């Protein structure tokens, strides 16, 4: 099954000088994990996302579409990146999700893809 691993982290997690150092550390860990998952043929895709200040949302309501500045949900956590993996079941997906590096307060959501 294919699973999307969505990484949510506090918006200000990597602010300031200390934040930048933490970011460098987290990115290095992502590279290591992604490298290993790709080598095993588990990872299909993945990327980090730019900050939610770069997000734009298209809202469809009553047949009308409008463009909005910002992410769809204004929360303290924002979607920071994702992995797309292919593993046999949820237990294995969760085992990988646990290994995804996040800053304190970070959350990792695991969602199966719709299979056609």
């Amino acid at each position: 099954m294919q699973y999307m691993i969505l990484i949510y982290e506090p918006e200000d997690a990597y602010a300031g000088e200390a934040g930048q150092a933490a970011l460098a550390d987290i990115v290095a860990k992502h590279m290591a994990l992604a490298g290993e998952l790709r080598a095993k043929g588990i990872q299909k895709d993945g990327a980090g996302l730019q900050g939610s200040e770069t997000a734009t949302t298209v809202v469809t309501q009553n047949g009308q579409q409008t463009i909005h500045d910002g992410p769809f949900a204004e929360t303290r956590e924002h979607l920071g990146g994702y992995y797309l993996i292919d593993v046999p079941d949820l237990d294995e997906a969760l085992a990988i999700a646990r290994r995804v590096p996040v800053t304190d307060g970070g959350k990792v959501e695991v969602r199966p893809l719709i299979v056609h």
Partner: protein
Amino acid sequence: MRRFGQAISAARPRVVAALAARLRDLDLAEDAFAEACTSALVAWPNQAPRDPAAWLWRAALRRAIDAKRRAAVRERAVLDTPEPEPTPEEALMAAHQPIPDERLKLIFVCCHPALAPDSRVALTLKVVCGLSTQRLARAFFVGEPAMLQRITRAKAKIAGAGVPFEVPARDAWPERLEAVLTTLEIAYAQAYEDAALAGETAGFAVEVLRLSGLLAELVPDEPEVLGLAALVRFAEARRPARLGDLGAMVPPDRQDIGLWRRDLIAEGATLLDRAAALGRSGPRQILATIHATHCARAETGGATDWPTIAALYDILAQLRPHAAIAINRAVAIGEAEGAAAGLAELAKIQGMETWLPYQAAFAALSAKAGRRADARAAYDAALALGPAPAERLYLEARRRSLTTT
């Protein structure tokens, strides 16, 4: 079906688990089992067969395979080339293998941490024990549509998210087993609460008794599993004595030991000994030991050994820093060392003033300390917090005893 109820409920976990493992579909497994039970009514006119589980497994598997084949045919919509029906001989041949024991896998699936705790409890009691949605709704004080939705959502998540039908890997074992034990604990807490009242929900505790025993049989080398099974047995042993003649709750130290079930106390003691022999203590074993200490009155015939119970609560409070345990600990200290010591411990618990167990404990300790005005006020506060009928009667009687002298 009532006539064979015993045989059918005993067979259910094994048969439904084997069906679910084979079919990878909980709904289909449950439906096939239900159909097999219906045909058992016709096929077992006077008595159940020698091996009811094997009979139900064969009948249910045959039906499930038929249902799957029909569904597959519908899916392909090839109306002019129907799948050949299996001959009865073929179906029997396919089914004549022994029932694989997949019960542990089924329990792990129903108690998967990817499901919300309430959903795990509902799903386990529904699928493993066969409790009806209606009965579960009553036991958990929700409407039947809400309970149905809880169960349907849980099944949809299992199927949709790819929860595997496997016993978890060794490294995931502690977390997964913890989820199973928590599920059983929630189920039993519910059963303990409501089954003090006889009637509709009284049989519910029997299912948790059976389920905890089943888990202890399937996982005999995990001390906390044995501890939980022991705990449920000690608590259930006292059930016949929990209500007085007028329906009021009777606390363990005042229960008529003649009404206690010695068979369950003996089973609990054996389980707890086996757990202790494994040499890894844990909160359920401590709690079971507290229950065992209450039950020891059955042998000694004397008073409750409160100093031992207080010492056990000291350990338990370290392992589980919950308000309910802190309150019980204060009550035990009050019995062991005097009301003043108990009140001092209770005073350390903050922010629980609107919780019934807190007010009930404060009332009892105040009364014991001779602080009658405090006790009366606390009993009034407790009664205003909506106790269950049996506890209401008990609290009202305690309240009255403070006014008459």
